[in-house]
């Protein structure tokens, strides 16, 4: 188990390095000088300033040297400086990462609560009105793009009714709509997944055996059915949490949520390469770690799985 974790963490290093290398190569061979433009009208930047900035960011070095420098700093936790404000990328992304994590955790909690309870309910009362409407609503939720849902909710609950603040602050209120927007599709998918695995498990021989030997219904449900049917759901949630961290771009844009999704899209538009590489590096690392956590959870949930 311990060796397994160490090996997986070793993999993490390789994956993160690989990701930064690919990104670095892609971004830095793109046309257009990242420090060559100035905000505002069509003015060209002063050549002397461009030269100075090139020197400051080491942009005149060969790509391989730039990458070496980057990795050298990366292992010390330094993600470099951004091109527009000359601020450390880690300082820029730190609070944003915390914000996105807050949003993603809220969304995943909603996914679990809504998804699993709806799925379980639907499976237990198969073909009832509950089941049919759950299937209908979850299918609809998956079909509606989150950008549409987010904008409609913003229009109705913020602008018309004034229940929530337009500009996100630290209050719980401002978290509600973005979290719902971010969670809705995954919650629906989790519900459908939970329903189908539940149904599968309900028909399994060991459940019939458990019922036949006279175990109370509650025990069968919690010890045998739920525990076994939740494994695929956990796999899905683990992966989707990693996705939430990076995939919150739309939600963060609509609700002006100051997170890394927003940082990424803005950095792409500004050719702000250090921020792009920084966001991707962090996301990849988080993703790999979460995958590890999911794998460890399997072992805890299913004694048949041995990690070695």
């Amino acid at each position, binding site marked *: 188990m311990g060796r397994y974790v160490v090996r997986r963490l070793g993999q993490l290093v390789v994956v993160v390095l690989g990701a930064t290398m690919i990104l670095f190569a892609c971004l830095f061979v793109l046309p257009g000088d990242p420090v060559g433009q*100035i905000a505002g009208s*069509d003015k*060209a930047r002063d050549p002397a300033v461009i030269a100075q900035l090139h020197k400051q960011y080491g942009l005149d070095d060969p790509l391989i040297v730039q990458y070496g420098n980057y990795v050298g700093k990366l292992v010390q936790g330094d993600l470099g400086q951004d091109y527009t404000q000359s601020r450390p990328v880690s300082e*820029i992304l730190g609070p944003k990462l915390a914000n996105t994590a807050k949003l993603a955790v809220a969304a995943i909690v909603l996914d679990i609560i809504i998804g699993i309870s709806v799925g379980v309910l639907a499976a237990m009362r198969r073909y009832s009105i509950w089941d049919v409407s759950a299937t209908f609503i979850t299918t609809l939720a998956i079909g509606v793009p989150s950008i549409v849902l987010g904008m409609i909710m913003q229009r109705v609950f*913020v602008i018309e009714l004034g229940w929530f603040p337009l*500009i996100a602050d630290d209050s719980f209120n401002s978290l509600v709509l973005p979290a719902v927007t971010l969670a809705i599709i995954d919650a629906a998918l989790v519900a459908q997944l939970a329903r189908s695995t539940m149904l599968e498990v309900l028909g399994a021989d060991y459940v019939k055996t458990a019922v036949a030997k006279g175990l109370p219904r509650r025990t069968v449900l919690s010890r045998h059915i739920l525990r076994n049917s939740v494994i695929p759901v956990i796999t899905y949630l683990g992966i989707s949490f990693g996705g939430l961290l990076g995939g919150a771009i*739309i939600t963060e844009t609509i609700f002006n949520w*100051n997170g890394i999704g*927003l940082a990424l*899209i803005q950095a792409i538009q500004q050719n702000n390469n250090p921020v792009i590489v920084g966001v991707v590096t962090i996301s990849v690392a988080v993703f790999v770690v979460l995958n590890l956590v999911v794998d460890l959870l399997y072992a805890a949930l299913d004694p048949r799985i041995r990690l070695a």
Partner: protein
Amino acid sequence: MRGANSAKWVAGAIVIALAATACGGSDDDSSSSSGKGSGKAGGTFRLGITEPVAIDPYNSQESEGILVTDNLFTGLYEPTADGKVIPALATSKEVSADGKTWTFKIKPGTKFSNGEAVDAEAFIRGWNRVVQKTAASDVAYHLAGIAGFEDVQAGKAPTMSGLSAPDANTLQVKLSAPDFEFYVKTTHTVFSPVPKVAGDAKNKTYNDAPIGNGPFKMQGTWQHNTSITLVRNDGYGLTKAKLDEVKISILNSNNGVTLEYQGFEAGTFDWARMPTPQLPAAKAKYDAQGEWIDENTNGMNYLLPITDNGPLKDKKAREAISYAIDRDAIIKGVFQGMQTKSTTILPPAFASVYQKDLCQSCIKSDPAKAKQLAKEAGLTPGTTLELGYNTGAGHEEWIQAVKQQVEKVLGVKVKATGKPFAELLADQQKAGATGMYRFAWGADYPTPDNFLYPLLDTASINKDASGKVTGDNRGRYSNPAFDALLAKARATEAEAGRNDLYKQAEKLAMDDMALIPLWNRTQLRLANTKKFADIKMDFHEDPNLAEISMK
């Protein structure tokens, strides 16, 4: 699964890019309300901006950054919305006969908000700080005329030799070349005085919470991507502001305009821009309530023809293009009537030099004349004409309209190519560029020189060894007669005589069709005139925070 993850991002990026193109434009015409009201003090004014590059005067540059800097600092002179220059801390100015030595008297006894005196030394300190090589300031070039600028930029000297303080309230500036408009340049925030605590330009503490001498001061520090809060500076040395507080929310640039508008609708903001598609609805709703502001500001929109190469080398070819474009149709069809046609090189906001209808071909589209001129210039049907523009800023629609009109009238093939801004700029700069480009220009300070010199003077082409244009005259317009007029204007001390020469120079460039005017830069805003009085749009297209009062 990493693959799926990044695919999600790409999809997200596309959606956002599509959404972003819808915003971004701007446009048109009514008028500011609010007369000189009773003007009570107090109140909190709320608005949204996008994250500035800097709020420290050493690198404050775009409208958003200048909004903050301009309210934290007060310099020698200030620009007015209609292109005039009025004194701020300067009590007098004097220029030597050769135009190379300026002497400013500074109002005595004013202070920074930390109690330090605002004297000549404070100005010298601020100006030297900007010019240091390590500062890598994007706006240091405004000080390039001061003697010793080059040495400091090259790291050979710590301070500019041209700056001195004969006494505490006298600032003497020696220039390396005559400039009778130097005082106009000091309206830019880069010429702000700074206190001793500012340190050098890379002082992060000061960058995020500048201590200044303006009508407002910072409350706390700049919360990056979140907010900036200003409060009234009760120790201000000139006319004090009336507002207690200004709360600036920092919005994301992809959705900022929409959020501003929604914020205004929801009562969260007192000042807002609007997404282009919403303009007619917003005008219908807010114009009647006196909350609609529109103003032709100090910017212009042009087509930039490459004049030294390719199909538009002949001025008649350029005139043919201009006659072929039906500006009225585009303004009505694409901009929903919210833009105004331009017929000059200089913006109407420069009231004292504005020569309406200087561009004959801009007044009304004339296909017959266009065909005739194209024939004379050898711009024959079938010729391919490049038309470059930057994507993601809402230009796609009108560019397509121009393409269709020009193709239909002249029978040429217009190759419209959209690229990100940085690439478009590189295209315009590269040796051998041809055709025409979307182009816009805004003034840093209110003088015609700030358009005519960078855009059209031969010296502003500035080709490097590879033939790349490094100056802002990317149309490569070069006319010795024009250069001579401009030089003469720059060497004329009296404003009236100078303006007259600028007008002559503009006419010459217009006759050569050195730029093809399209529409003025018309800016539209919503302002909460129910709660506040005296709200106007200033020279930087920002609200005049220092003058706004409660109703």
